[in-house]
């Protein structure tokens, strides 16, 4: 049975015009009940609606609240530092190969925590442009507001992950892969196969057996919003297995694909989040050299992580 997240169902925009689409409560609860998720249906039923249609303003406020709570989780899990660990050597490899105008684009950035953190600390260097994109204009507006408030050198824009207008030297994402069904993953990765792109780093919840229980405890302890708690557990339940991700990313064809998982830390309590990494083959040796000892954490398709699980 499909595992659904409420946040995917309560807001939609016309991909062509960008116009907000009305969402009927009955449609959402019907889908959730059909998936056997009665608890989620009850959460949606309690949301403000007018004539059976969800009130967009309260949906927006809720999603901003949930993403603000989500940022707290990302802070605690050191998500920004995790990106820096790989971004810095990847950008250095690109620099030494003659890439100019370096740019990092965070796909599905939500309220832009990682991009704003990178902008605050400037750890990647002054020559790196930072941009966050998300299909949800309300989250993008919030990300922009926060960046303006703190005077941060970064930008945000609305964009669909499958039709990116934004070129990047490195594409990154966190907690986004599980929002797409397996048969869309190939398109997601292919959208990032651009002439000026050196590689990508996509973090998502590691699909271990313990992940749903861990997510329950962690979200229950740290989030107040019922929607956030619900979606957090379902994210862990629908997270793609390692092999699925590596295979889908491999469809790009023009990049070396790895899973980055330090062997000492493959236990599910340390590897709550782990990334799929893609890099142009000509940059691969430089990345390994720059990673030093940590390069041993790069596992290719034929060199799987011990805990690498079969396609889910």
């Amino acid at each position, binding site marked *: 049975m499909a595992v659904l997240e409420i946040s995917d169902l309560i807001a939609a925009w016309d991909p062509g015009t960008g116009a907000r689409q009305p969402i009927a409560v009955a449609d959402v609860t019907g889908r959730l009940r059909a998936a056997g998720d009665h608890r989620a249906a009850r959460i949606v039923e309690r949301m403000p609606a007018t004539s059976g249609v969800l009130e967009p303003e309260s949906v927006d406020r809720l999603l901003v*609240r949930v993403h603000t709570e989500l940022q*707290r989780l990302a802070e605690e*899990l050191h998500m920004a530092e995790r990106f820096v660990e790989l971004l810095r050597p990847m950008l250095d490899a690109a620099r030494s190969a003659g890439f100019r105008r370096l740019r990092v684009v965070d796909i599905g950035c939500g309220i832009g925590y990682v991009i704003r953190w990178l902008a605050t600390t400037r750890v990647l260097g002054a020559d790196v442009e930072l941009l966050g994109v998300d299909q949800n204009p309300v989250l993008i507006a919030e990300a922009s507001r*926060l960046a303006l408030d*703190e005077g941060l050198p970064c930008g945000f824009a609305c964009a669909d992950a499958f039709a990116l207008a934004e070129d990047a030297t490195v594409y990154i994402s966190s907690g986004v892969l599980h929002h797409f069904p397996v048969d869309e993953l190939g398109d997601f990765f292919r959208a990032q196969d651009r002439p000026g792109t050196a590689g990508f780093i996509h973090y998502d919840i590691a699909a271990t057996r313990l992940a749903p229980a*861990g997510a329950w405890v962690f979200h229950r*302890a740290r989030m107040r919003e019922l929607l956030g708690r619900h979606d957090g557990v379902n994210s862990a339940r629908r997270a793609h297995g390692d092999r699925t991700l590596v295979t889908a990313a491999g469809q790009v064809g023009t990049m070396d694909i790895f899973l980055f998982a330090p062997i000492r830390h493959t236990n599910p309590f340390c590897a709550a989040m782990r990334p799929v990494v893609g890099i142009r083959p000509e940059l691969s040796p430089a990345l390994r050299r720059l990673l030093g000892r940590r390069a041993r954490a790069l596992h290719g398709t034929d060199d799987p992580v011990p805990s690498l699980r079969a396609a889910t």
Partner: protein
Amino acid sequence: MHAGQFDHVAVPVALAAVALVDAAFAGFRAATGRNARIEKRRYNLRAAVRGLAIGAASLAVVAAVLGIGLLGTHDAGHAYDALVQAGHRMLMVLMPFAAAVVVSLAGYWLLPMRESTFVILVGLGPFTLARPLVVLAAAALALHDSHRWLVWAGTLLASGGVLLVEPWVHRRWYHEPL
């Protein structure tokens, strides 16, 4: 068991210290997830101070009730002894938990990021969920076999106060996101 001279001072001081430190963290937790700015040291500090203030106010209420109760009883010495013994039993539950939290916090701040994540997932996260149960267990042990109303009043007021700091600070100052 008789409470010794040392315990007469050490037990209430230890309980008050644990309650105040806990209140500061409760204030911090009440404010989390409400501010998505990157730089929020001052925001967090202010929330901790608010928690501390509410915790201190609640302690003052407990102290006042116990003080008035002791003044109004004919066997103040025995009553104080009974309170110290109840406090001692509370500490037997609270101290190991506090020690585990301190070790986890040190681990979270000092260890590399993956080990630090480990500490969050097996330590600090579950500890937040366990905290009310630990307070209830401490209260239950304190009340065990005690028939004095002062012990009951002190234990229930103190435990209730500890558990109320976080929701109170949250409702009062952080109900609406920034």
